[in-house]
């Protein structure tokens, strides 16, 4: 091997992507495929129920969506805070994100309670029930997983274990949360806008 080539290789900085980010993108890619299949099943089955409640019984969850989507803003603010080492500010924005996510879940629960007890719509009622609860439920389960992760980080923050050098890991987790919110935009559009 010529010494020139070796010297050149060593002189250039060797930069590669961060493996945490790459892994999270891969996970998001895989999850997107799952959600796509459930969305396709929902759209395909629109109007195909032979009986039972139709999408007209749905009330558009405007407030719930505002809460969830603003949690993307709060988590972004949290990311910026920890980047600059402002742990207390980070903790506040992070806790707010967690709260907004929880409010969204509660709102979903209230909505489902109304659908089940008032409109008689369950997962086994008809095609609409099956596809609706599956799709929205799949999203909600991902919100729950996200909230668990957020809670763990919140506990670490409160006990003083989070520092500025953890910024990158927190950003990787935040990527997941942004994904969950992005999926909600799609689900919201398909179920409450197009589907009705």
């Amino acid at each position, binding site marked *: 091997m010529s010494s020139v*080539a070796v010297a050149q290789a060593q002189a250039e900085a060797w930069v590669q*992507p*961060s493996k945490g980010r790459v892994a999270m993108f891969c996970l998001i890619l895989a999850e997107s495929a799952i959600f796509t*299949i459930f969305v396709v099943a929902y759209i395909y*089955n629109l109007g*195909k129920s032979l009986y039972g409640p139709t999408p007209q019984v749905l009330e558009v969850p405007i407030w719930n969506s505002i809460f969830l989507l603003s949690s993307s803003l709060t988590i972004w603010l949290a990311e910026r805070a920890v980047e600059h080492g402002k742990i207390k500010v980070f903790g506040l924005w992070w806790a707010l994100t967690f709260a907004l996510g929880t409010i969204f879940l509660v709102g979903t629960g209230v909505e489902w309670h109304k659908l089940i007890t008032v409109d008689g719509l369950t997962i*086994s009622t008809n*095609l609409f029930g099956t596809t609706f609860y599956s799709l929205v439920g799949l999203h909600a389960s991902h919100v729950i997983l996200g909230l668990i992760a957020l809670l763990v980080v919140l506990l670490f923050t409160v006990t003083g274990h989070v520092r500025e050098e953890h910024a990158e890991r927190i950003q990787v987790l935040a990527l997941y949360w942004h994904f969950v919110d992005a999926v909600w935009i799609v689900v919201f559009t398909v179920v409450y806008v197009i589907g009705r």
Partner: protein
Amino acid sequence: MADSTFPVPGAIGAAAPRRQWSQTAFLAWLHDWVVTVDHKKLGILYMLYAIFFLLVGGVEAMLIRIQLIRPEMHFLSPEVFNRVFTMHGTTMVFLVGMTYIFGFANYLIPLMVGARDMAFPRLNALSFWLTFFGGLLLYYSFIGGYGLYGAGSAPDTMWWAYSPLTERAFSPGHAPDYWALSLIITGFGTIGASINVIATALCMRCKGMTLMRLPLFVWLNMVTSFLALITVTPLTAAQVMLLIDRYLGGHFFDTQAGGSALIWAHFFWIFGHPEVYVLVLPSFAIANEVIPVFSRKAIFGYPAMVAASVGIAFVSLGVWAHHMFSIGMTSVGNAFFVLSTQLVGIPTGIKIFNWVATMWGGKIRFSTPMLFCTAFLFQFLIAGLTGIILSVAPWNWQLHNSYFVIAHFHYVLVGAIVFAIFAGIYYWYPKATGRMLSEKLGKWHFWLFVIGFHVTFDTMHIPGILGMPRSIFTYEADRGWGTWNFIVSIGGFIQAIAVLVFAYNLIYSYFKGKSAGNDPWDAWTLEWATPSPPPAYNFAEDPVVTSRRPLWDIKHPEDPDWRYE
């Protein structure tokens, strides 16, 4: 290394110290293997798992071939036959096909990119054990559950599990549940392993190894992993939907409630077609390493090979309905899928031409790995051509679900993939164990297997053309299929003998094989710069590379690759 067992961490090439056999030593050794996060050990575990289930799936194949050797045989009842052929397909695709991929990838990728381990070693271990337990759950079905006809609860609705046959109304037992649950679990294992492969290939390369200097083995496994992420997940989604139907009263595939049998088929094949590319691309990965080394030439057209692989992955996402030509799509729909399917033949053909061009002008050494790879090339060509035949929708209306299709896909799965797996094992076994596999046994293995393969799968095209459908436990005596089935079964028995020779070779050579040294094949990629087997840390110093074939540059300083790339 006559006295050692599996590679001991930290060993550097020479014989490991004699191990005292006692129960504590054995338990310590077992514990080491169970809790390991070392990519080499996990790679070996994946391969042992794959080989084990290759044998199990092979036994299932032998049972099928005995039942079908003559018309109206009563060796297996229809219930048992339906379980055996469903399990044969499910086992071979998920427990052999999806595991050999990560066996080779896990073992070799860190070594080839000059890294110490995979990007996420603990995720690696989790992925393996998820796959392992998923397989166990699948096989537990033979004995668990209350069994429907007194024949256990093993899945019995074909490996495609078409609805509404799998709905509660038509499958009241637990067979589809075992199928869906075990594959959901192994699916999570696959996702984890794929993420690991991508992250390692993109983020852990040694200095100087740009993406266009990655060994093609790594490229192909990276493309496979990307494809797997969006291929396996649709199946997971569909299986969750099936379980919702079966347990929560859902109606996704409940045709009596307005649900659709068609949509299961679409979802399954949206998984199923890219899946076969997930299975076959890693066999290309192996060929891309073996053929150049044994032809003594660099791979011809490296950039085209990369582009063709990525192209195949993308186009393969758009061809799935060629499995559904007879389901009643419109003429326009059918025509679209004819076109997309034939288009995927173009990058695939390019790869074949590149391999031939690599051999052209070379000095080919026909050791066992190259024997298997040459047969692979020839057989993959034929498999591709019968694939083109099947892409012609009107002809597909005759050949779909017949023995012609079975012949075609076994030509790919056995003729290409299993041959490549054997080539890869003969090639890298010396690296993993420090011993060469016996060339003499290898040649016996090869010739028996290739003859048995052709006797079975060449002949198998004929009953398909004569109107024999698949998934039937027996056939009428007056259809004229008896003689052909007899020949097919004989070839199956010959292949079984060949595989037994191979299994014997693996074990015999582990104890008595010739010592391999670092680089028994005079090869050019980084794994051959380590001792055989490599120490736990792989490389004492991080390598620095300046071309696609770092060892060629070292061996041929007067004519290094980086002048030409």
